[in-house]
Structures are given as structure tokens and as C-alpha cells.
């Protein structure tokens, strides 16, 4: 049944909010939101009651009800570690990620194949990162604008830490993403319109990955129930 309760997790020096959106017997599901979003996004874009088990949604550090990282230092690997703290709490869980949460879901699925039977990667904010290799001239040219953004807090104050922008411009090499995809058990990638980032294109080519086209407008809960629980004969021997 649809419930909402919150669990506090201590990750390094930040306290994270892990929300239980649904409490039920069955396989748990963990939701990872996009950059500058929060766990609240999931209630607007799908129905937790459509999933047969418990549904959890974390607020990444710097977002929603979680603490901000003093002095910044945000990057997708830290978000993946946020999500890993949730796995420590929940145990084995299917994972759905949107935007930067999709990239974090990939890292988690590759590093914790024993805990993540399958992950669903959705479009969203922070999906692309800063490209497949560093563009040092662009970094140098864009520096003053970046510094102005970081040192002039917008009014009204945003619900997220402005420093999370560093988790938007980090380099995401395709071979790095592929290394994680190679060890993941199952990845379902929901293609968006337009050009996909290079890391995404590389992941789609891995044996564990299945691409779903023309589905970007469907709700996350519909996609999760339709695709995550299907056993993969090649990988799971089912």
C-alpha cells in the first residue's frame, strides 16, 4: 500500500533522506532522481503502487531533504555512493535512475551486481555529463561564468545546492561506462529523443544492455514493471 516514511542515512559528513514510498512484500525498488531534482519527482511521474514490492526513493546529497556537502565536491560517484548506503539499508533492490541518477545506477549496477539484479536507466537532468573526454579549452573559457554562478546565490534560494553543477560537467568516458556495464547483470536503457551521450551509446552495446525505444513518455512505474522483473535467459539462466 502507498505509505511514506523517511529513513535517515549517515553518508560521510552528510545526512541523507531515504523515503519509503510503498511498503509491501516483494522485490524492493530503489529510485535515483535526476540532477536538481528530488525524491518528490517520482510521485509526479509514476505510481509506486504499480510495483509489486516496497519502493524507496533517495534524495542525493545537496538535494531535497538530504544535507548539502559543505564546500561542494559533488560528482556522480558520490551520488552512487549515496545510493549504495540505501542498498546497505534495503538489501538487494532493483534500481531506476533518471538523468545523473541513471549514470549513478549504471555505476552501482556494475559495482554491486550481487545487490542489483537489474537497473532501468531513464533520461533526465544531468544525463550527459561533460562529454566523453575533457575539453580543456572549454573549461578555461567557461570558468568565469561558472565562478559567478557559484558565488552569486540566486534569489529565492534554490532547493538544491548550487554546487551540484559539478556533477553535470564531469567527464564520462565511454570506456569507463562500458567497464561498469560489462559487470552489470541487466541494464534497460530508455532512449530519449535526440543525440545520446557517448557513454550511453557505449553502454547500449554491452551484452547486459537492452534498449527500449519510443517509450520516453511512459511513466517510470509502467516501464519498471514491464521491463525490470523479466528474467534474462542469457544472464540469469532463468
Amino acid at each position, binding site marked *: 500500500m502507498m505509505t511514506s516514511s523517511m529513513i535517515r542515512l549517515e*553518508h560521510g559528513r552528510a545526512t541523507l533522506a531515504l523515503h519509503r514510498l510503498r511498503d509491501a512484500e516483494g522485490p524492493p525498488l530503489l529510485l535515483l532522481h535526476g540532477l536538481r531534482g528530488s525524491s518528490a519527482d517520482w510521485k509526479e511521474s509514476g505510481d509506486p503502487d504499480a510495483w509489486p514490492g516496497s519502493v524507496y526513493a533517495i534524495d542525493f546529497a545537496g538535494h531535497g531533504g538530504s544535507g548539502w556537502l559543505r564546500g561542494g565536491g559533488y560528482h556522480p560517484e558520490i551520488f552512487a555512493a549515496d545510493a549504495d548506503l540505501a542498498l546497505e539499508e534495503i538489501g538487494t533492490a532493483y534500481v531506476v535512475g533518471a538523468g545523473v541518477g541513471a549514470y549513478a545506477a549504471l555505476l552501482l549496477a556494475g559495482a554491486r551486481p550481487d545487490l542489483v539484479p537489474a537497473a532501468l536507466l531513464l533520461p533526465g537532468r544531468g544525463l550527459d555529463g561533460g562529454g566523453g573526454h575533457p575539453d580543456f*579549452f572549454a*573549461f578555461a573559457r567557461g570558468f568565469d561564468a561558472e565562478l559567478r554562478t557559484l558565488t552569486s546565490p540566486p534569489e529565492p534560494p534554490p532547493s538544491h545546492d548550487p554546487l551540484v553543477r559539478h556533477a553535470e560537467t564531469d567527464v564520462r568516458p565511454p570506456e569507463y561506462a562500458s567497464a561498469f556495464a560489462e559487470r552489470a547483470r541487466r541494464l534497460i536503457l530508455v532512449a530519449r529523443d535526440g543525440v545520446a551521450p557517448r557513454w550511453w551509446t557505449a553502454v547500449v552495446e554491452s551484452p547486459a544492455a537492452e534498449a527500449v525505444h519510443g517509450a520516453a513518455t511512459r511513466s517510470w512505474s509502467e516501464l519498471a514493471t514491464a521491463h525490470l522483473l523479466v528474467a534474462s535467459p542469457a544472464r540469469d539462466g532463468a
Partner: protein
Amino acid sequence: MTPAPSYPGALAPERAWWLESLGVRLRVHEWGDPGAPPVVLCHGMFDHGRVFDVLAPLLAERFRVVAYDARGHGDSEWASAYSWPIDVISIVQLLRSLRRPAHLVGHSRGGAQATDAAARAPVDVRQLVNIDGFGPPPEGFDEFGERSTKPLPERFAEYLDWRRGASTRSTWRAYDGIEDLVDRRIRQNPRLTREWLRYFAYHGARETERGWIWKADPHLTRGFGPWQPGWIAPGWAPLRVPMLAVTGTERDTWGPLPEKLIQERLAYVPHAERARVAGAGHFVHLERPRETADVLLAWLER
């Protein structure tokens, strides 16, 4: 409390102040005439601004010398998490706080970050001196475990394991006495006297009820990302300011790299000159402060 040790030629900073940088207060130390042209000094990993207590007074004869403790180091505050771009931003903020272009000097990690800062803020930097901050060799430094042959996801799982316990890892072990810190540090600085090591170990540690504890944040030890040594030199291509590339001549912990590799990397720097300090290893300014000062004084504002 143990009184501060003295060392021949070492001079405590004449002034100190705080720089607010993206939510963290950084300690800044100064020597010399506040009206003189500024030189900014950036220390290396796990060091602190007071390692310049011998070099800085030698430069202060002509310059306003400004050394800072990077976040998580020395007397600066600890951050929740650390990243290279944030440190680079801090250096640029320090430069801009001086309100006139400065000469920028960095050692090791501080040299590499100073180089990135100079590439991003060319109008704030007059000249750049990089002291053995040319990054690890392609295969990585052994000391940082970079040569692990484990697949990336396995190494990331180890990082995740560490992060799961990170909230409880807030301090280093305590040492009984400052001589234990000297014993620890002498392993990476075998050519330095115990007297000199004791001097800057004292400023790099805190005497507590439990014993002596390094000031640097233990969370600095672990990070994870896709960064690779092959990105170092191409990152220098946008530099507009001239770089003096300084190394010692003695191979030890973190350098110098083979000269062929240094030259390959320097080939990306539009305006680079090369200097060597004979008899010094990686910690050039600690081992040969007088000779290092001579090299800098001959090059800065030339």
C-alpha cells in the same frame, strides 16, 4: 603543550587571515611588504602552508608572499567532500582577493592545481612556477594504489565499501609524541634532518589529549573517478602565462618523472622553461630552499 620548535632560517608568517571559499574557510599566511608584488604559494598533498616557512622569507625580500592551506589541510577547515575543480576555484579566489596579478607557485598537487588555475584565470597570474607537479606516470604512482590491476567496477566497489564507513572515519590515529610523526615523515623525506622535519610536522599536526594527530582530513585519502594521466598535458594547452618547470635531480617517492616524459608533457605548454635544483628530490623547496629561492628570484619579474 609542546612549544613550537625553531629551525635555522624558518620564520613564522607575519600575518594570517581567512579566505571564505565556497562554504569553507581557508587559512592564508603572509610574509613581506603588503605593498610588494604578490607571490602565491600552493603546497602539495597532505602538506600545509607552513612548509614554506624557510622559502617564503627568502622570497619576501622582494615580494608579498602569500601561502594558503588548501581545504582539508593545515589550519583550513575540512569540507564534506573534495574535488579537484573546487581546489582550483579556491586558488583563483585567493588570487582575486589580492586585487592585482600575482606570481603563482605550486608544488606537486599544488603545482598541478596552480597550473589549472593559471589556465582558467590568465589575467590574475603573471608567471607560473610548477615545482614537480607534472602528475603521475601513465601507469600511476604505486603509493596511491593506482597500479591495481583489478577491474574498475571492483575498485569502485572497494571505494563504496570505504564510503559506507566514512561517517565514522573522522580522525587519524594518535601518535604518542612528535618524534613519531618525524619517524613517519622521514620515510618520504629521507634527505631532511630530523630538526627540519620536526618543525613542519609540528605545524602539520595537533597535540590533543589522545596524542599527536595530523591536521589533514582523512577523507582526502579516498576518491574515485574516470581521471587518467593522459589528460594531464593536454590540460596545459590553454595556458597563456609562462611556466617555469622546476624539478630536483634525485628520484624518490613522487618524482621527478623521467625527463623524456616531462618534456613530452611540457610540449603542450605554449611558453615553458625548465630548471633543475641539484641534489633535491620531489620536495625541492624543502630540501634546497636557498637554491629554490635563487631559481625563483632569477625568474620571477625577469
